[in-house]
């Protein structure tokens, strides 16, 4: 049975094509692309050498899920993230979804069913957008930030959590000739501290798994590990967790 999960996020749209629990193909396009969802689905199909008619069920998730015309069903990010995370790492009990514009902390059981969750959707502090702004302010590409921050030798405190103010705080650190890696370390620590608070709120139960685009950032993950005193695992394709969960839910629904 073939199913597609599509995660229409605020910055990127992700699609996965699955056969039962096996991922056949993945695609990622910018959400600002025209018909991003269609583009992502088409890319997935093309990679697997299939056509639209072969797939019976498509579940859409993410902030733009209701605008995915091809979807046969919808599900919220919370349950998709949990499902996807457990699929990738079966021991996952606490899932941190580190998305572009929001962070979610989810607790789930062994089958990926959600038992509790905490959201941050009032302030962009601690989200991917925050990191993106910092990346621009420091002129360090997003993918390099985490690595570079690990080279820090000195603690710098970044206290502002408002994206705009943090930008100026970072600029003033640059002015004071503070090394970029130290500033980066400070940024990562401040984000991780905030996420750590949310982690405590859902219970910090093992195994903690981080998904979402920001989970690729080793700097953030390192600090969360350090603060929480616990291992934080990251699946191979963290940004696709929601889409994988959606595809699995699509298959479930089709069966029942």
């Amino acid at each position, binding site marked *: 049975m073939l199913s597609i999960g599509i995660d229409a996020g*605020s910055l990127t749209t992700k699609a996965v094509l699955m056969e039962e629990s096996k991922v056949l193909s993945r695609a990622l396009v910018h959400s600002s692309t025209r018909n991003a969802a269609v583009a992502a689905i088409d890319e997935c199909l093309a990679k697997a050498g299939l056509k639209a008619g072969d797939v019976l069920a498509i579940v859409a998730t993410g902030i733009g899920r209701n605008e995915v015309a091809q979807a046969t069903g919808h599900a919220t990010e919370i349950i998709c993230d949990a499902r996807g995370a457990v699929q990738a790492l079966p021991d996952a009990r606490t899932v941190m979804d580190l998305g572009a514009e929001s962070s979610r902390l989810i607790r789930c059981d062994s089958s990926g069913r959600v038992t509790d969750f905490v959201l941050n959707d009032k*302030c962009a502090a601690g989200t991917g957008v925050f990191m993106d702004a910092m990346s621009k302010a420091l002129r360090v590409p997003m993918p390099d930030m985490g690595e570079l921050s690990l080279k820090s030798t000195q603690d710098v405190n970044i206290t502002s959590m408002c994206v*705009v*103010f943090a930008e*100026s705080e970072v600029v*003033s650190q640059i*002015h004071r000739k503070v090394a970029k890696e130290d500033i980066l370390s400070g940024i990562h620590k401040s984000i991780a501290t905030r996420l750590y608070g949310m982690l405590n709120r859902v219970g910090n139960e093992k195994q903690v798994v981080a998904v979402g685009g920001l989970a690729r950032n080793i700097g953030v993950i390192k600090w969360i590990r350090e603060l929480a005193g616990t291992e934080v695992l990251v699946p191979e394709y963290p940004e696709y967790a929601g889409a994988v969960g959606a595809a699995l839910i699509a298959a479930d629904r089709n069966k029942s």
Partner: protein
Amino acid sequence: MKTAGVDVGSLAGKALILEDGRILSWGLVPTGPDSAETATEAMDAALKQAGLTLGDIEFIVSTGYGRVVVPFAHKNITEISCHAKGSNYFFPGVRTILDMGGQDCKAIRCDGTGKVVNFAMNDKCAAGAGRSMEVMADLLQIPLVDIGPRSLNVEKGEVSVSSTCTVFAKSEVLAHLRQGAPTNDILAGLCAALATRVYGLLKRVGIEPEFVISGGIAKNVGVVARVEQKVGLKASICFEPQIVGALGAAIFARETLLKQQKKPVTA
């Protein structure tokens, strides 16, 4: 007597030279990674313009975000005092000033000599600062200068933007776009939201004529018109609103010098 003021803001560095109370020249450079360097560049630009060297300037006051790191300044004074002073130079009748820069926004009340009697600034969160407009211009892919005029040309009706956080306002704007709202209407909503926040700040200090708007936002007619409407007063805007802080600093420099020389302070 030649004095100078240097204003190192978050987006631009400004320097201005004053001779016996008359503006001689000014320099305006974008803020670089090093505040001290920015200050030097701005100062050099102003000096070059006037055909002078640093040695010709008798007293220099620094102001703005980077005021404490200006290496050649004799004294630092906050941008709040400097804006009041500078506005008073252009508009002697000014009593209320709205200064809106990249990251913060200030409402200032002053007396007839340009001395601050009350002020208020926006808080921890950047909602209501000029930077949010840049973010939106970027997002909508239109030049910053077009925001104002276009926001006054509403097509279907102003949309409402409820998020105060710049980042979330951005997603709200995207949602409006997806739903087919005309760009102008979104811009109108953004300008209106900004004007409301700014107005709140003005009310905190109390509004009295004459009313001056300075800083980058003074160039946005969409915000200016909406603030004017709420305040019920026409705003005076000087020909180069970005140099008001540096001008104020230069005037303070002059006053300090005169006081040291025990001469009467007259313009």
